[in-house]
């Protein structure tokens, strides 16, 4: 697992640099939440929401691949912006608990204005 997380961080940074330019991924982690969700998240600097809009499919696919490599089923993949700005500070792939399928990922709209949804597994949510 340790190797996969490290490799995921490196791969994400490399792919984003190829797509967008000078992107820095200081930290990547696998997490478990109190509600039951588990996920893979990468903090990053240099990415903006316009980049995410242009490369939505590709970034989503990269996240999905890394997420699977660390054992997380990527049911809900999203970018989180720094509130009130266009800076994207985290990319997350999450395997959702029943509550979050309904509450966090169940709306047609993005759950919050700082969240940009990249992929959503409709059949499971």
């Amino acid at each position, binding site marked *: 697992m340790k190797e996969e997380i490290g490799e995921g961080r490196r791969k994400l940074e490399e792919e984003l640099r190829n797509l967008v330019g000078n992107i820095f991924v200081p930290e990547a982690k696998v997490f478990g939440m*109190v*509600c039951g969700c588990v996920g893979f998240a990468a903090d990053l600097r240099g990415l903006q929401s316009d980049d995410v809009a242009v490369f939505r499919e590709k970034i989503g696919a990269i996240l999905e691949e890394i997420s699977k490599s660390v054992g997380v089923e990527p049911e809900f993949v999203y970018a989180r912006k720094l*509130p*009130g*700005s266009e800076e994207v500070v985290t990319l997350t792939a999450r395997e959702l608990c029943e509550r979050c399928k*309904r*509450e*966090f990922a*169940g*709306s*047609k*709209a*993005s*759950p*919050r*204005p*700082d969240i940009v949804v990249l992929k959503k597994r409709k059949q499971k949510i």
Partner: protein
Amino acid sequence: MTRLMVPHPGHFDALKEIIEVKEAEDLKEVEEVFMGGSPEVMGSGRGVLHAPLIEEIREQTEYAHQHGIKMNIAMNSTCTGGHHLTFEGYKMFEWYFGELNKAGVDGVIVAEPYLVELLRDFPMKTIVSVLSYVDAPQRAKFFEDLGADVITVDTNINRHFELLRGIVKAVNCDVRLIVNEGCLYRCPFRYFHYNLASHLSSLNQPRSPLFAPDFYFDKCINIRLRNPTQIIKSAWIRPEDIKEYEAIGIKCFKLSGRTKAVNWIIECMRSYSHRSFKGNLLEILDCPQMLRYMFYIENEKLEGSIEQWKSCKKVCNECGYCDALTKEVLTYLK
């Protein structure tokens, strides 16, 4: 008729979805929404997740009006660092209020008395924020005289029925209650936490990074983990108990939660519109949502507790009602 104001996270799709549910389910009491304004002008009492430009506010307001919903903008920072009293600050607020008015906005929610007065120059409704801490008839009258059209009462007196009755009698403007706030009763951090939030949600940030940006929040959670009775003592109002407030002349209610997920807001809107909720009360309380993962408060078992709170003297060390109630209704989630 009773009116319910619902939080709107800020993005247009969320507004559409909230209104879609309101219309599809004929939730008649939902008449207004509120969202944050631009952090470039002013912070607010909650974290800002979206920074709408005037054009976006105009578009969303038009959409809301097409569906018979009023749009209000929250500008309820409790501290601007004195900027509003500078000439530049005055000009900026005057300009921004003018732009909101031209955008068709129905009301502006403010905490600062100076801004309450400034809003007199505009036809939009002046809505005094819960962060003006109106907790007595005298203070309510003071804000009405400054120009308030609606006063959102300090949640600390949500269960002080004599004071609420007194406020309703003292003023002619609308009196509004926030129903689902779960803050600590008489919280010692309240003023300081909102001052901090006001700065962190604006461009007027602390000069160096905070080593404990969540200090007040963490203290708040810790207090309740150690003493869950504090959750029961909080000023929330069950959907089923709204009628008790209507009986004393309060017809305006507000849901808190504009930083929460759209579907959470919609579920709260349903519960309070239907005046009924089954399950863990913590599911519909805003702030701090985290507690719903640790405790279960069976809402049905709280039936009748409002009768105690209506006449409660709030001398907790001599009473013990909430301690006993906690043992009855609250369980720990494993």
